[in-house]
């Protein structure tokens, strides 16, 4: 939990309600973790916790980019296929061109950002709904990926060991993968709270017309959100390659809806204007913890998907209730400055 900018004094109840959202997600993670540990003591093993973090990290990373896009009332359905394409392209370069290890990350991020730029350009210049654009891009990228792979899967022996080490090495017991994702979450989370262009994203998602009238260059901001989402999906591709050291054309298939689910569970409003990247990352961690806990407790994962779905419905219903409450609170509040402060925080009212 990061500290949040203080709301106007006099609205402490509202502030606590808003603040509770990520804390609630984090608490749920702990509850699930605790319950699973009670049933199976091995669940609190270092190994098991490492698995929890690693398993959540890719979805959390993609969730960071997706949050930026969803906050502006757009959608990026192409993240899963961008991840798959970048993972394969980097793996292919490793085996045929023997590029240096560090450049694998650079190339993956650059390729992802380029695809994100295409998404962003089409969405903002041609003014086409982003859901349609990124859905079409999902298919195109998948097709390109399949054509590139064409049966020649990247195998573990073809990935440089220094690169694959990123996928399994730890520092003080914490997996590198989790550290990288945590750094990204912290950096983007800080930026989203602090920097004006990032705050603009909330303004655009809260009320696009008002944002434009306030002089916010909406198109440019939305474009940057898509580029960031693409770049992070690209980075996710590099990390996927490091983690599994094996890539075929099914890498990342179906991730897009998992990512959106994690983001929504983490408290990002699907209609834009509110939510944090920390919440999104916690949402990914919660879904993964539930899944692993079910495996540990029931020694079967059959229930995990149904529970994830029910949880997702509960999360959006809760957010709806929360926003209705906040709206009521705003209406009854006397000072106009209060409205401003909360509108800036992006409550979907």
């Amino acid at each position, binding site marked *: 939990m990061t500290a949040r900018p203080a709301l106007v004094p006099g609205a402490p109840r509202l502030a606590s309600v808003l603040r509770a959202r990520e804390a609630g997600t984090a608490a749920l993670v702990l509850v699930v973790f605790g319950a699973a540990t009670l049933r199976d003591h091995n669940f609190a093993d270092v190994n098991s916790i490492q698995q929890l973090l690693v398993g959540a990290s890719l979805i959390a990373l993609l969730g960071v980019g997706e949050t930026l896009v969803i906050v502006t*009332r757009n959608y990026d*359905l192409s993240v899963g296929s961008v991840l798959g394409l970048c993972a394969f392209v980097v793996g292919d370069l490793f085996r045929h061109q023997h590029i240096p290890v560090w450049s694998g990350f650079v190339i993956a991020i650059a390729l992802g950002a380029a695809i994100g730029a295409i998404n962003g350009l*089409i969405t903002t*210049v*041609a*003014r*086409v*709904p982003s*859901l*349609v*654009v990124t*859905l*079409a*891009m*999902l*298919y*195109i*990228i*998948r*097709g*390109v*990926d*399949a*054509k590139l792979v*064409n049966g020649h899967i990247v195998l573990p022996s073809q990935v440089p060991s220094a690169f694959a080490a990123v996928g399994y090495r730890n520092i003080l017991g914490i997996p590198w993968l989790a550290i990288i994702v945590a750094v990204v979450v912290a950096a983007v989370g800080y930026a989203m709270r602090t920097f004006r262009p990032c705050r603009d994203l909330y303004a*655009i998602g809260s*009320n*696009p*017309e008002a*944002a*434009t009238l306030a002089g916010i260059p*909406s*198109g440019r901001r939305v474009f940057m959100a898509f580029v960031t989402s693409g770049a992070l999906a690209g980075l996710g591709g590099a990390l996927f390659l490091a983690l599994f050291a094996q890539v075929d*054309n099914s890498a990342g*298939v*179906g991730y897009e*809806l998992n990512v*959106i*689910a994690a983001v*929504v569970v983490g408290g990002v409003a*699907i*209609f*834009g204007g509110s939510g944090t990247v920390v919440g999104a990352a916690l949402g990914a961690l919660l879904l993964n913890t539930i899944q692993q806990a079910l495996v540990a407790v029931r020694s*079967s994962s*059959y*229930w*995990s*998907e*149904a*529970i*994830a*779905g*029910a949880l*997702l*419905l509960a999360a*959006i*219903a809760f957010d*709806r209730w929360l*926003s209705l409450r906040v709206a009521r609170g705003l209406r009854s509040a006397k000072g106009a400055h209060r409205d401003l402060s909360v509108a800036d925080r992006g409550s*979907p009212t």
Partner: protein
Amino acid sequence: MSSEIAPPAPGQQAPPHVPAGDAGSRPPLWRRALRWETGLVVVLVAALVFGSSESATFASQTTVFYAGINIGYIAIMALPMTLIVVTGEIDLSVASMLGLSGAVLGDLWHHGWPIGPAILVALVAGAAGGALNGILVTKVGLPSIAVTIGTLTLFRGVAEILLGSQTIPTSSDRPFPTWLTNIGVVPVPGTELSYTTVIFIALAIACGVVLHATPLGRAMFAAGLQSEAARFAGIRVARMKFWLYVFSGVICAFAGILLAAQNSSVSYNAGFGLELNVVAIVLLGGVSIFGGRGTIPGVVLSVAIVGSLQMALTQMNIDPNVQQIVIGGLLLVSVILPGLGRGARWLGSRPGSLRSGHKPPWARSVRHRL
């Protein structure tokens, strides 16, 4: 067929207005000739010509039969999806509903039920799942895209609980009755069409008549264009949307049974990920993702295009995954072309007149009254 509906184009987000009813305000002939469907017909003809020139076996009845087998059950799900998108909502749970109904059928069959009651229960499960979507969207007032992503996961999860990793019928089960599994093998007597094709055509005619020739259909367009205005005009928007979700659930459950019959087996992951294919078909058919625009003939043409391209590319031994480039490219071009036209008009007019941040209706949360 009401001709005063403006030419639909995906992403064409002209300021929502209810089309004028009087014949005096009809657009000029060239505008009417430029309908979305005209473009689709051209693409379809091109696809057919391309297919028959590249593959000797393309222009045959076998192709038509197998196109029906391959795409029929997806196309059937596209029809209720069209109606739902026209009313300004979306249903992403369709493919999971298909999987769930198959799982219900398989589970009951596994436990010794006769096929008839098992099918009936599977259809009821579809209605129940659709009702859940409908209640969450219309009664609780949640955005339909979030709700149906949730039920997408939920329905698939329930299917997984029911069947686990087994495929029904297992080796110790009775096989499905032959009259049912024949759906995937023999055409409808007297024709060369698969059962799914015939069912799709019948359903498409029914949906087309309802959407384009009844007050209910007009109400769907009205709800998609301006939900509030439609409600004030006396249309029970929430109730209509609720029943559309139920309809979608039943139809998708039915598609699940058809798929089970075609494959002679069910597993929990049948049709995994097809929801986005269904959405792509509907959007390519010219239905606006913002609601209020779209035609059933357009969606039927879109199904025909996707089906014939798939068959042509398959007969040319092109990897099915690579075929996605063609489908995705078509979808992209179909939204960019009208978008660029708008952009050009926009350059000539003043900035700021565009609805840059129009919130799609399925992302809105409005508390309706049932």
